């Protein structure tokens, strides 16, 4: 039994491997980009808008509001990163309703990649907001003694992000697979529904935590 879609390899040439994770990710990327393009192709600025535009606007404005609630005053600047995190994880997890689909978020490589993206995004936004000195000073807060703990916290929270998402999604898929061998009818459907819920919750948790970390880096400068 394959625990990760990484193990399904389509093409390999030395270090370069094209596995199911990457292919599924491309498919999801394509889906998202084409969907976005189709919907935003004829955006209306009037009072009457299409249903799809309404849905998209609702999603975008909700993400915007969430970012604002966490404490980032200029959500337009962060929505590209945080919104994409949410949409990619969310769509990846929602697609489990398709039979034979293996979510790329169920691969530790993907979740690690996302966690590393967050790890890199935190200093990126922090430096963009308060300069490199301002950002580095956040590691000395509240005192320089905290520096090792702050560094450890950077590493561990990234690890936690990666493992939390991977564990949840992988276990969801695993449970369904195990249950299918035990009782093939009805029960796996309920577990699948739970899997959908977990997937959305994880997407939310992942993106909101990323927001919190970025806000932490940005806010320090402001509170000074």
């Amino acid at each position: 039994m394959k625990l990760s879609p990484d193990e399904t390899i389509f093409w390999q040439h030395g270090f370069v491997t094209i596995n199911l994770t990457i292919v599924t990710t491309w498919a999801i990327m394509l889906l998202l980009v084409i969907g976005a393009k189709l919907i935003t192709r004829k955006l209306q600025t009037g009072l009457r808008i299409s249903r799809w535009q309404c849905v998209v606007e609702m999603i975008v404005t909700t993400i915007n509001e969430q970012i604002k609630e966490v404490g980032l005053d200029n959500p337009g600047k962060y929505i590209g990163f945080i919104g994409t995190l949410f949409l990619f994880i969310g769509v990846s997890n929602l697609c489990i309703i398709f039979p034979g689909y293996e979510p790329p978020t169920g691969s530790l490589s993907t979740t690690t990649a996302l966690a590393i993206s967050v790890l890199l995004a935190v200093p990126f936004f922090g430096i963009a907001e308060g300069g490199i000195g301002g950002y580095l000073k956040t590691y000395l807060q509240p005192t320089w003694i905290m520096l090792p703990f702050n560094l450890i916290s950077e590493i561990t929270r990234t690890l936690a992000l990666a493992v939390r998402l991977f564990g949840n999604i992988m276990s969801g898929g695993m449970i369904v697979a195990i249950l299918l061998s035990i009782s093939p009818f009805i029960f796996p459907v309920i577990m699948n529904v739970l899997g959908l819920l977990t997937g959305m919750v994880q997407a939310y948790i992942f993106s909101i935590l990323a927001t919190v970390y970025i806000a932490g880096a940005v806010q320090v400068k402001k509170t000074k």
Partner: protein
Amino acid sequence: MKINWFTVIAQVINFLILVWLLKKFLYKPVLEAIDAREKKIVARLEDAKKKKDEAKKEQEDFAEKNKQFDAQKKELMDKAIADANVQKDKLMADAKAAVDALQTKQQKSLADMQATLKRDLAQKTQQEVFSISRKVLTDLSSVDLEEQTAKLFISRLEQLTPEEKQAFIDAFKKDTKSVLIQTAFELHKKQQTAIKKAVDEILGKETEFEFKTAPEIISGIELSANGYKLAWSISAYLDSLQSNISATIKHNVAPAPETKKTPGQKPAAIKEQAPDIAAEPEKK
């Protein structure tokens, strides 16, 4: 459950590409559309507010204008009523004046008629009274009465005042040949002599006398010569009385001075005067 580092790198790159693509195709246009719509809504709301303000202002203007129109209407109505009242008063006054004029004219003609009637009545009454008197006295006249008349005539001659006597003498002295004495009945010789004597005494000379009877005298004596006439007769009395009464009637029956009537006076006042016309002859 191991990490494939190539996959990790590939996924990071994939994710960054996806971020860029979604930013370009999703977030940016959607957020721009939302902003544009918000701007439109704000503009519309502002426009609506502006229009509302304008409408309110116009409503206030209209209310003000309505108020002004009402005031003007009231003013015009008041003026029209006042004009109508003035016109009414004028017409009423004209009508009253016309009525008064007509009334006055009527009263005048009535008064004229009354006066004419009075005069006619008075003349008629006078004529009747005199004709009756004349007839009664003619019936009563006799020789005996003539005697008494002669006596009275003589005593009157004797009682003449010196001025009268002088006037008498002046009248008869001049170139008088005969004195005419007229009576209703023929006088006795004795009476004729007494008269002659009395006259001669006054004149102081003897004069010729001619005695005539004239029944129209009714009763009395008339003495005439050279146009002078001294008489005592009932006819003369009656004539004198008639001329006096005629003068009095003319004076009294002259149209009464007009009485100025107030417009409200009843026409009945004219009727109330009517009995006077009938009463007039009796008073005289």
